[in-house]
């Protein structure tokens, strides 16, 4: 049985090395191995004693996957996880290729996998997840996802592939409808995480979730939450988990991170029944590193560079809402592949008073948006690296902090550039 896998795995691994030598990862080796051995993913994941759990949602997938992975590792489990971004079937197969032996042995206990909504059905059919968390349904990437209703439908289809437990955000309009339906069906255990009403009320733009117009005004039974965010101040949150309150300092600021943590705790408890310890989980959350580019701070000489992600309206708005006052040194950089720039106008940018650099291939669209918001900006530099270097070479801001609000590709570029600087700067 296993022997059949040797050749496909060998070829896949060689392809993986080759594509990496050419620079960057690739989903191609995964695609190739799945062509040669369609049962590859099945065979490999069947070895996981704790099975696979998946993380879904419009925003927060990478952060939550990171949190659940950290919690599971703190419980002594060996975790297989996909690097953020590799959330399509071929990508997962490629990541598995990097971990398995030539005979297809996978030395892990649990798979914790981030899954793209549009590919979720296919990938979950292959992975047969025991448990899943769905974080939110937000207006996101409408050039490919079209309408939130369509995304909610994708999540409904994905839920049908989950075998034991589904963890849902009580404060999400579409997910509360979905959860009620699933609870009525009775096939899955439905667990909720949530945010206390007072916390929601004091968030400038709430959780930026999509409205479910078709089901508004429906009377609903109360939903008991497993984990609830009771407060969120900067990176500090208080979460009640099954009635026990814990203060947690997370690795990044913002209500969205606190809500992700509540979701991560709920999913972890469902994924590790009998083993889950709240103390272990909380200390794992406290000692966690940020997923790169998500509220990450990097020290460069006498400056702090903070990287905030703006890959959708929700991520931009939640990150702006989490700022402690008006940042005094700001760069905003927009990707070429952000195809429809319209959503920039749905964001409330009023926390910004001034922007130093607009950057990225689509810098001009940020500039135009700032003009109409009446927010002045100093420089347009389409190269994110050059803009960043110019900022670092410029005067040190009073706060000592440069706030970088970056689209996905620009975040990767900026990070790579800063890492390179770190190496050059040696012990700095």
């Amino acid at each position, binding site marked *: 049985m296993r022997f059949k896998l040797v050749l496909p795995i060998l070829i896949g691994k060689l392809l993986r090395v080759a594509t990496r030598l050419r620079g960057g990862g690739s989903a191609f080796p995964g695609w190739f191995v799945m062509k040669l051995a369609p049962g590859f993913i099945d065979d490999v994941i069947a070895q996981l004693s704790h099975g696979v759990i998946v993380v879904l949602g419009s925003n927060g997938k990478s952060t939550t996957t990171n949190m659940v992975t950290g919690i599971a590792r703190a419980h002594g489990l060996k975790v297989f996880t996909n690097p953020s971004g590799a959330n399509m079937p071929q990508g997962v197969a490629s990541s598995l290729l990097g971990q398995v032996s030539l005979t297809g042995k996978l030395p892990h206990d649990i798979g914790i996998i981030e899954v793209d909504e549009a590919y979720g059905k296919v990938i979950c059919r292959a992975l047969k997840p025991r448990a899943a968390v769905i974080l939110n349904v937000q207006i996101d990437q409408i050039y490919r996802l079209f309408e939130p209703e369509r995304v909610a439908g994708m999540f409904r289809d994905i839920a049908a592939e989950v075998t034991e437990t589904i963890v849902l955000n009580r404060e999400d309009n579409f997910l509360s409808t979905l959860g009620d339906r699933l609870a009525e069906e009775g096939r899955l255990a439905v667990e909720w995480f949530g945010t206390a009403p007072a916390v929601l009320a004091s968030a400038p733009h709430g959780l930026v979730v999509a409205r479910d117009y*078709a089901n508004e005004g429906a009377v609903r039974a109360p939903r008991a939450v497993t984990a609830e965010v009771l407060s969120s101040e900067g990176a500090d949150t208080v979460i009640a988990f099954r009635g026990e309150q814990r203060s947690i300092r997370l690795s990044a600021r913002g209500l969205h991170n606190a809500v992700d943590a509540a979701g991560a705790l709920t999913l972890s408890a469902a994924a590790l029944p009998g083993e889950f310890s709240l103390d272990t989980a909380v200390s794992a959350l406290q000692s966690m590193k940020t997923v790169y580019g998500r509220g990450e701070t990097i020290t460069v000489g006498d400056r702090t560079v903070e990287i905030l992600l703006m890959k959708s309206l929700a991520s931009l708005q939640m990150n702006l809402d989490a700022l402690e006052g008006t940042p005094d040194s700001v760069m905003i950089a927009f990707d070429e592949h952000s195809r429809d720039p*319209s959503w*920039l106008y*749905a964001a409330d940018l009023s926390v910004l008073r001034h922007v130093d650099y607009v950057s990225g291939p689509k810098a001009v669209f940020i500039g135009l948006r700032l*003009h*109409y918001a009446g927010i002045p900006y100093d420089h347009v530099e389409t190269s994110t690296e050059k803009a960043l270097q110019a900022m670092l070479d410029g005067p040190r801001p009073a706060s000592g902090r440069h706030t970088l609000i970056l689209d996905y590709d620009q975040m990767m570029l900026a990070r790579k550039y800063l890492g390179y600087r770190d190496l050059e700067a040696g012990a700095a």
Partner: protein
Amino acid sequence: MSALTLLELYPGHLMMNGDMGNAAVLKRRAELAGLGFLIVGHEPGGALPDHVDLVSIGTGPTSAQAVVGADVALIGPQLRELAAAGVPMIAVNAGFHLLGRSLTLPDGTLIEGAGVFATTTQPRSDRTVTDAFVVDTEIAGRVVGVENQSVTVTLHEHSPLGRVVTGRGNDGKAEGAVNGNAIGTHLHGPVLALNPALADHLLAAAARRAGLDYRLNAAHAEIDAVARQAREHLVRGIGVAVDAAA
């Protein structure tokens, strides 16, 4: 009255694609010209303000269109009156369809529109997403935006906004509708942010009706240069010039 009042229809429902930016653009440009500007929102069940100088309506998911449909029919007579009086309007995508005569949703539900535009709108099974949607218009020359829609619009009278250069528009040939100073279109971007000439057309008409002077200055020119660069960016690589041949 030295301030212009813009009526924004259903901002809580038709907010999927940043078209609320059109109201923000009109406000900013009016203010840069020294005019006061007030945005008043209207949601289903509410009453329209007594005085309206401009109207803006954006796009939303099918579910939101179904919810606001009844209210659109209710305020339809008032909107038709405003349009007949020459009040400038910008209606985008679902907002354009809702301000037409009727709109059929994908599930077959027929929604009676406001009747500002002489259009009927039918759903299609496929969706058109055009990253550089280019339309040649009489009122603002070549306009550029983004298209994301899945309907066919039939224009029974009135003129289209323009001729499709790239993308699909109403039917693959014509795009949008113009009734007096009311403009319906599928252009996102938002359309007025990317195409200030269209915004100025609406503002000039509104100011004229209000006995005000809408005069452009250097601050507008600065924005217009950036908007032009944005349009140039969108058409780069598709072999279409940013300006129509004279």
